[in-house]
């Protein structure tokens, strides 16, 4: 019981702004085939349980879990869906293996955001139907309010937030899977079209299509399958208040609590000294700064300065979103956290190509479920 758990296979397809040539099932199938080949397993013979992360309204299908097994090789197998982010799914697979009842579990997340003609209206349907929806709040409007509160309480500036955009879009130029790479100047970001003050258009991650599959294994199985397992040291997740009216707006309490839970499992007392790099949520640029403070890497108000000084750049002390983050790779709906985890695995395996970081042992992935939630997860991984 409670063996260590490792990621032993990864596969992904994408990420592209539109994929008119592929259905979500084809995207998932292709990612699954790659992940199973990477792990050296046959899903029908070897994998004992399957997990998908998905939300009905993103799929345009009620009871979407009906459509999850076929393209994964999971027919007539124990399979279930988590209505959560990819990192919630990763935590679920981690728990399943830790029960001692499963040695191999596959996890899938996908995005076919380009199919959604009315995505802003869909995300607005996540608001409280009684108290908030009559106000006709736009999702970006709520994010603008939160950003304003964060800047106000921490003294962070719009320029510091814009520096996140410049960094992540630049990083994405070195990631062949990232469609939104760009060499922008701070001025170009600051002068981009307003979205909901103080948010501007360039601060928002555009959506992308793609699928990610991971295979997780218990320690003994992992050692048989691969000589480079990526160990999960800890996983944490948390919901702050679902109500917009009574939550902490400036601080990401859900990220702080998730991190504490993950660090406790990992046995970290000084997480910022242990963790070599991080992939954090940047659905909106300010969220990266807010997350870095909640995760304990910086004190409130200091993440912006650190970003300006290059601490979170590729050659900085704490590289953050070297993949390009969601700003560079595209926001993948429920698979977004899984794309953060994917980069952590690639970096820890030494397979990140031109953006490979040197001398790294421990990486962190963090996710947020988007407006209007205060919900997210953290996973800490190691290659040793």
């Amino acid at each position, binding site marked *: 019981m409670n063996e260590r758990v490792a990621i032993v296979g990864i596969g992904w397809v994408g990420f592209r702004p539109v994929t008119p040539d592929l259905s979500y099932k084809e995207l998932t199938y292709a990612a699954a085939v790659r992940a199973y080949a990477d792990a050296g397993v046959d899903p029908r013979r070897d994998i004992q349980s399957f997990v998908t992360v998905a*939300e009905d309204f993103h799929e345009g299908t*009620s009871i979407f879990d009906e459509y999850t097994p076929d393209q994964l090789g999971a027919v*007539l197998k124990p399979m279930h869906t988590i209505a959560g982010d990819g990192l919630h799914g990763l935590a679920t697979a981690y728990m399943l293996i830790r029960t001692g009842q499963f040695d191999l579990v596959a996890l899938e997340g996908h995005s076919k955001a380009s199919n959604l003609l009315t995505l802003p209206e869909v995300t607005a349907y996540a608001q409280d139907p009684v108290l908030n929806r009559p106000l006709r709040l736009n999702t970006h409007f709520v994010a603008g309010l939160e950003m304003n509160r964060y800047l106000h309480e921490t003294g962070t500036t719009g320029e510091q937030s814009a520096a996140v955009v410049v960094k992540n879009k630049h990083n994405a130029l070195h990631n062949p899977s990232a469609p939104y790479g760009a060499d922008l100047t701070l001025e170009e970001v600051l002068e981009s079209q307003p979205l909901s003050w103080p948010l501007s258009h360039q601060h928002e991650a555009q959506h992308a299509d793609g699928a990610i599959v991971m295979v997780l294994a218990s320690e003994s199985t992992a050692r048989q399958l691969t000589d480079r397992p990526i160990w999960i040291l800890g996983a944490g997740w948390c919901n702050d208040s679902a109500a917009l009216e009574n939550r902490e707006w400036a601080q990401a309490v859900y990220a702080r609590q998730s991190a504490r839970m993950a660090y406790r499992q990992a046995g970290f007392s000084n997480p910022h000294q242990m963790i070599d790099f991080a992939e954090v949520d940047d659905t909106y640029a300010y969220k990266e700064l807010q997350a870095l403070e909640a995760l304990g890497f910086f004190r409130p108000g200091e993440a912006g300065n650190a970003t300006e000084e290059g601490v979170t750049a590729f050659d900085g002390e704490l590289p953050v979103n070297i993949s390009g983050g969601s700003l560079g790779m595209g926001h993948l709906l429920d698979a977004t956290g899984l794309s953060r985890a994917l980069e952590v695995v690639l970096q820890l395996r030494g397979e990140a190509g031109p953006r490979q970081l040197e001398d790294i042992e421990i990486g962190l992935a963090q996710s947020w479920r988007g407006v209007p939630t205060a919900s997210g997860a953290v996973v800490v991984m190691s290659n040793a």
Partner: protein
Amino acid sequence: MTMRKVAVVGAGMTRFVRRAQETAKELSWHAVHRALVSCEMTMDDIESVCMGTAPDAFDGVHMKGEYLSDGAGAWRKPYMRSYVGGGTGVFVPIQGWYHVASGLFDTCLVVAEEKMSSYHPHAQAAFLTIFDHTTERPLKPNLLWIFALEMNRYMHTYGISKKDIAAVAVKNKRNAANHPSALLGDPDITVEDVLNSEVLAWPVNRLDVSPVTDGAVAIVLAAEHVAKRITDKPVWIEGVGWNLDTAYWTNRDLAYPSYVEYAARMAYDMAGIKEPRKEIHIVEPYDPFDYKELHHLEGLLLADRGQAPQLVADGVTLRTGNMPSCPSGGLLGVGNPIAAAGLMKIAELFWQLRGEAGARQVPGQPKRGLAQAWGDLMQVGTVVIMGR
């Protein structure tokens, strides 16, 4: 390898009603409050929360699990919503089980809620969007039609009559007359009443099927060392199983639910059960339709194929029979708020195995029970075995 033992230590539920005045969040909270009171715990003792609730379309709320989180008591706590369609009600305690069995948590609050009455004029319309958008939706099928197909296939394959099947509805609605939370208890209902109710989609008549219902149920799970401090009557989760078949239901043998058998075998293996017909004392199979109880008793290997109607006819499945089935009154009697109905079956086993089921108590001090749910496109089986 030894498994970490997980116990159910508390349970609570709201009344099941056609149209609740409470919001979905309030229903969840009422169930949670009753579950916590039942084991003298507070939210401070709860380390994690699992939520089960069926499609977002019922409430018309995107990411409905996030919306329901605070009502379920998940404020600043680890919280996740799992989902396997109609099977969710018996899956969410499995989700709670792996939260505790993983060693990450010592306690977990498991909540299932459904508010179907918000859907106007009828929740059945929410199911129009569950079908494949390319091959099936243009035919405009609904759930009653496809289950009528399955019922017809089951009757045809084994030569079963509508009268044999109606006996299940009668048994369950009579059982529910003793359930204080039931919507449809009726001590006087007869087979003729069922056969004479109007046809919805032949061979399904109105009293063959459970109705749209609002309600919520919650249970509290604890690891062994904590459970023993909370209660001297813990009910252990001895085995769990779940299984999902292909989405292409049109290619499936509708006469026999293989996915239920696979889920049951997984749970029997975990519980070390070799002869389920001898070792399971109470069974709560999923009964949204009366034929489904029979179908599921066969899938659970508790009856031979096509022989479950004989068990009902012989009185074996009565509360006083050798293998009481749906002593709660089931979905046909207590009501069918989708996910909450499944968790109601787990709560029923908890009360029955502790001898706390009052007028519904199965005689003979039963030691072990099984609850099962089913869902999606006639596709998923979820099974939990509990014992004291």
